[in-house]
């Protein structure tokens, strides 16, 4: 590591209203190195990389390329300086071909004004053979797999002459096989002299691929360590800043009757691919069952099918003895399902609606909230007052629009609504995403309360610590199948292995 860094960030600070997203960050990248940036969601990784890609301007600090300060006012400038980014959400145009996507904005031409399609194809093929990224230049983006799309994204950056590649959570959408293929690609890029910043919050990946690891916590650098010799435990401590992760006091579960029974459920996703492939499990009253898994392994489709938002192609869903496989969303809710959806802004709340209206989003059809199709606003208001007090929602009166509340209070509103309907089964999807510690604790306590009240709680989370601290039983989903069941005493390593498809036949 004697040579000079190809890229250095010095004292980068970025403030957003109310938040210090990046606090005097120093970061450097050596030529031909894979430098991982590790941190929890919201630690400030994406902000930092957006600064590097010219999307944000830092409030303080400077960026040095080969030791010279540069000004990255736009993405164009970043590209010209040889910085390429592979976004977590691919920036590809679905109806265009691979070649068109790759050459966009720096197209080969003939006769000065015409786009030279054959040259484009040639360049793409050339690049893809050189770096071992097999793609068909003439295929349309919406007809190729996610893994191939990611290769196109990488090619896009290479085509623009990127020397520095930023990969933002690249494995989030990949299957384990695809992830391994990606690691091969990264190694080959490294051999060819490219420098790579690898952003992730997955410890084992970082250990596998990185040369050095920098950990970010709440906008600050915690430390940089060489990957050789680092351990998952040590990194986890740096990442979350505490030895013992969130633990909640809870009593021994007293499982009762099975309230949610799922048998051999098969569900297709929007693209018509089999996304839930024969899932069977049961959740009893009085227990919390956690579903762990890497994102996009069928969780979303499973929840949709359970709650009547998506048609299950075969199998059965039984709620307290009543079959609801083909019921509408409304019927499912009416028969005693509570659902805390994954994204409270898009799915959980109608932001311009008042808190009263949001709290009444299911109950508006039931007496006394309405009668003969007419709303009883007085009763709805009474109910809202009671729930806002009961769930300690701060920052608004019943008339405040939900959009004006903080994230934690918004989630409390969703929680209040779902719990007040006294569901037999409560489905909680990522119930603490983006919340601060206080709000997380509140949500967790409420979920445990529901369990203790004899309800069946089905928790879906991408955060292993959440799963581990809350669940009485843990199911692991991988590629649309429940691959293994664990007791709450399982370790992160065991779960992680199952989540990535390892040891599938064990247990």
């Amino acid at each position, binding site marked *: 590591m004697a040579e000079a860094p190809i890229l250095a960030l010095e004292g980068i600070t970025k403030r957003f209203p109310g938040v210090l997203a990046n606090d005097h960050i120093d970061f450097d990248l050596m030529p031909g190195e894979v430098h991982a940036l590790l941190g929890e969601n919201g630690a400030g990784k994406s902000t930092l990389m957006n600064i590097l890609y010219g999307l944000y301007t830092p409030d303080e600090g400077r960026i040095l390329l080969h030791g010279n300060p540069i000004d990255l006012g736009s993405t164009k400038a970043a*590209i010209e300086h040889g910085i390429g980014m592979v976004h977590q959400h691919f920036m590809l145009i*679905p*109806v265009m071909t691979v070649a068109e*996507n790759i050459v966009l904005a720096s197209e080969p031409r003939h006769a000065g004004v*015409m786009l030279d*399609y054959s040259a484009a194809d040639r360049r793409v093929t050339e690049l893809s053979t050189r770096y071992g990224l097999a793609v068909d230049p003439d295929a349309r983006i919406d007809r190729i797999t996610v893994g191939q799309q990611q290769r196109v994204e990488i090619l896009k950056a290479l085509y623009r002459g990127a020397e520095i590649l930023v990969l933002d959570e690249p494995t989030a959408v990949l299957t384990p096989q695809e992830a391994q293929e990606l690691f091969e690609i990264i190694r080959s890029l490294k051999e060819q002299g490219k420098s790579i910043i690898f952003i992730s919050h997955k410890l084992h990946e970082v250990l596998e691929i990185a040369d050095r690891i920098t950990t970010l916590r709440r906008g600050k650098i915690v430390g940089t360590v060489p990957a050789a010799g680092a351990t998952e435990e040590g990194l986890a401590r740096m990442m979350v800043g505490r030895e013992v992760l969130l633990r909640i006091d809870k009593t021994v579960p007293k499982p009762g009757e099975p309230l949610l029974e799922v048998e051999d459920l098969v569900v297709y996703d929007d693209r018509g691919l089999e996304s839930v492939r024969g899932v069977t499990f049961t959740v009893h009253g009085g227990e919390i069952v956690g579903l762990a898994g890497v994102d996009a392994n069928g969780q979303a489709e499973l929840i949709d099918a359970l709650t009547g938002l998506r048609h299950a192609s075969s199998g059965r869903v039984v709620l307290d003895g009543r079959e609801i496989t083909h019921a509408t969303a409304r019927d499912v809710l009416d028969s005693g399902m509570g659902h805390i959806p994954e994204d409270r802004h898009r799915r959980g709340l109608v932001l311009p609606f008042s808190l009263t209206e949001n709290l009444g989003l299911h109950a508006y059809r039931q007496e006394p909230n309405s009668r003969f199709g007419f709303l009883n606003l007085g009763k709805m208001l009474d109910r809202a007052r009671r729930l806002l007090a009961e769930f300690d929602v701060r920052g608004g009166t019943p008339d405040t629009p939900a959009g004006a509340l903080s994230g934690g209070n918004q989630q409390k509103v969703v929680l209040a609504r779902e719990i007040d309907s006294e569901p037999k089964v409560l489905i909680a999807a990522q119930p603490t995403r983006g919340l601060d510690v206080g709000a997380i604790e509140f949500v967790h306590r409420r979920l445990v309360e529901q369990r203790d009240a004899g309800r069946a709680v089905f928790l879906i989370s991408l955060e292993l610590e959440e799963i581990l601290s809350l669940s009485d039983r843990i199911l692991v989903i991988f590629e649309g199948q429940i691959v293994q069941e664990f007791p709450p005493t399982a370790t992160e390593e065991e779960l992680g292995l199952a989540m990535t498809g390892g040891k599938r036949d064990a247990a």
Partner: protein
Amino acid sequence: MTALTGRIGHIDWRGPKVVGIVGIALGVLAFWIVLPPVTTRSPLLSILIGILAIFAGIWSVSRDEKRIGFGAVAAGLAGIFFGVLATYSSTTNLSAVVVWSSLIAATLRYATPLIYAAIGGLYCERSGVVNVALEGMLLTGAFFGIWTIIWAHSWAGSWAWVIGLTGAALAGMALATIHAVWSISLKVDQIITGTALNFLALGITGYIFIDKYGSSGTPGNITDYGIPDIHLNFLQNWYFIGPILGQLNLMIWLSWVLLIGTYFFVFRTPYGLRLRSVGEHPRAADTVGISVYKVRYVAVIASGGIAALGGAYLSIGFVHSFNENMTQGIGFIGLAALVFGKWRPMMTYAATLLFGFCSALADRLPTAYGDQWGTLFQALPYVLTIIAVAGLIGRSVGPAAAGRPYDKQ
């Protein structure tokens, strides 16, 4: 070019696609044979050919070529229906209506303002900005075209039409600039802005028209110095082609240039690729350094200029006068053609020809069959477009980002 030749090189002559297209052709044939000059008088032949078309359609539907297959079935049914209908009509009446060369010439005349409107709309919507103000842009072009040509006539003489066209385009671009500022910078709903602009164009052109020309209307001598017709004397005596192409307005020829130019621009140049990328996925375009706002501004303003040329053709190339609200929905048929043609230049052109033919037919039908039969043909473009967006003949889906303001973050 490789893609094009590749496509042609791989035609499977017994594939469902080809059979479907043959089916559509048969459907048309079923109707054509009962019309002059063939004028078969027995409905039987029409029915037979129509049934063949339907079978071809069903066959290709069963081979998963649904769009073209259903098209062939529809063409077959329509061929039988109209074929049988025509055999009940007298030969004299048919001959009075179906004079192919003049029908085609009229189709071209009616289609031309539609092409300008639709191509204008194509640029705008391909960039991701919905344009329901085509009607207003057309009307603006029509009025400002005639206003500037009259003004220029005194000093520019027979070249006044150049000034007229320039004036029309500039006025259309001015109107489109409002659309651009509102839709792109101010992020106001594009449909509401478009609706407002239609009102504004209607009001402003009507206001100035009344103020300038009042009850007497525009001068009658514009015919003498309007946009010239192109006389191709060597063609005059050619059979069939002569009457059609021999004397067409310059703007009709220009519309073909515009059409082919647009095709190449949108699908064969880097700028077209960028235009399409902005309309499909502005954020992706932004991340590779394309200025979404700039592309959209240019596209929307160009759209206004092009649509206005269609209006100018109408007022100073075709009817040589102006009336309040003279476009009477032509801009909306242009929009319909764009939707019907799935935002693709050649298919849009085919749609404008089809809609133009509807108008031409509507014009000629009354000569033999009374006023009423033409009127319903005027509604046909709109009904067909509803069917197209409903997906009955191949779902029509526009650019993905159309209608959404882009928020640079």
